[in-house]
């Protein structure tokens, strides 16, 4: 691990194990996009300022442009490709489409991951809480109002579906 030559890096991305040969100074962003073809993770500023490259590491948002692939080993990584299961969109993704929350779409993958980690912890966030949760995610199309709408709509639907299930089961 001490030379600048390539090293073996084993990553767990969306539940799958990938092994690549990469230089120790390669970022997770480069590995995901350029070696694993997981291009849902976007590159924006590449300096930590926009969060377009955000992925989840053990469920918590981190920036792949400032994380070495080497140091991402041993953690469960989730990218936007791992969010929909068997081609079925999550309520948040569905609400995102219906609310027109995606314009050019560049910030969308990371924004969806950010909002999803909020909804996982807080099923009924206020608009301010939603804004705080996505504070680091820059949308250059500045469609923040629709984005907050989408997260609110998804939260409402997720709560209703839980209430529905409780009603059916009792």
């Amino acid at each position, binding site marked *: 691990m*001490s030379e600048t030559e390539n090293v073996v890096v084993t990553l767990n991305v969306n539940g799958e194990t990938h092994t690549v040969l990469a230089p120790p100074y390669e970022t997770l962003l480069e590995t995901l996009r350029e070696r694993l073809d997981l291009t849902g993770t976007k590159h924006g500023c590449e*300096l930590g300022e926009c969060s377009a490259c955000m992925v989840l590491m053990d469920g*918590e948002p*981190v920036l792949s442009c400032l994380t070495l692939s*080497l140091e991402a080993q041993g953690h469960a990584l989730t990218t936007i490709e791992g969010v929909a299961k068997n081609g079925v969109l999550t309520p948040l993704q569905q609400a995102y489409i219906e609310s027109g929350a995606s314009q050019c779409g560049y910030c969308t993958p990371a924004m969806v991951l950010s909002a999803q980690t909020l909804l996982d912890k807080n099923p009924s966030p206020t608009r301010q809480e939603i804004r705080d949760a996505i*504070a*680091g995610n820059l949308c250059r199309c500045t469609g923040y109002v629709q984005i907050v709408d989408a997260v609110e709509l998804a939260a409402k639907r997720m709560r209703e579906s839980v209430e529905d299930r409780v009603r059916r089961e009792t």
Partner: protein
Amino acid sequence: MIRLPPFRFFTPGTLTEATRLFAEHERAVVVSGGTDLYPNMKRLQVSPPSLISLRGVRELKTIQAGADGSIHLGAGMTLTQIERHALVRERVPSLVEAIPLVSTLPLRNMGTLGGNLCLDTRCHFINQTPFWRQAVGSCLKDVGDVCRVAPGGSRCWAIASADLPPLLIALGARIRLVSERGEREIPLSELYRDDGIHYLNKMQDEILTRVILPRNENVRAGYLKLRRRGAFDFPSLGVGAALQFNADGVCESARVVLGAVTSKPLEMPQAQGLVGEKLSAPLIAGVAEAIALQARPLQLADYTYAFRKQMVAVYTSKLLNRLAD
């Protein structure tokens, strides 16, 4: 894609291994979360040949209560881990309030306390692409021989831009530094030098291992930050303060520390004007003005220096009034 320049990378599991690696790799630099170092390396402000990562160093990842009522924060804890820690939430609420003002959630999930306290100084003329820097003719902190902010002088004026040092200095924090030569403990305030290039009073191979906060019952402390965007931005001014009152409401001790004014966090002696007094708005306003008079921000961060100087008085009195309430 902006890529990192090549380097050798070491991942020690213990502090002893980490300090030993320095002996073998003289120009090595430590990296914790990398949220400050990697952007600076991508902009080719610095290109260390070897990095020693502290991520796997177990000793840096604990938070403990000392027998004397102090709290020991491991330098390798991420800002999020500190913010969420039960002991910190109970005993140092001012730190829990200040942490969300630092960068963004994903950055706080990566960035550490040690990295925050050792954050590189910042300036409009250095935190730019290599092309931009070359076009303006470079500067002292880069490869040039003149400061672009104050071309007449021979020093670099880049400013101390971390949010936590002003608060932690106000709280009387001490730090522990460890190298192959041994361990030493100093007040956090003594870590800093008023020099934008050599901004830390420590050797390159000294690892900051922990921050020790003294027992602080009856201490009211807080941090206020001026920045353009509410969502996130480095401070254009930071004010940390800690006040202690006796049972009669008389101020017994007062510390006010300014960030983002010069190359080091500045402790303002004018705050002593509060000691022995019951705090009132006019008294606070007078002390805040006296502090602003001594603060001389330069034209190298967001906003004009004149506005930042005015804001020293406004933010200081706002914070002190809040703490006195």
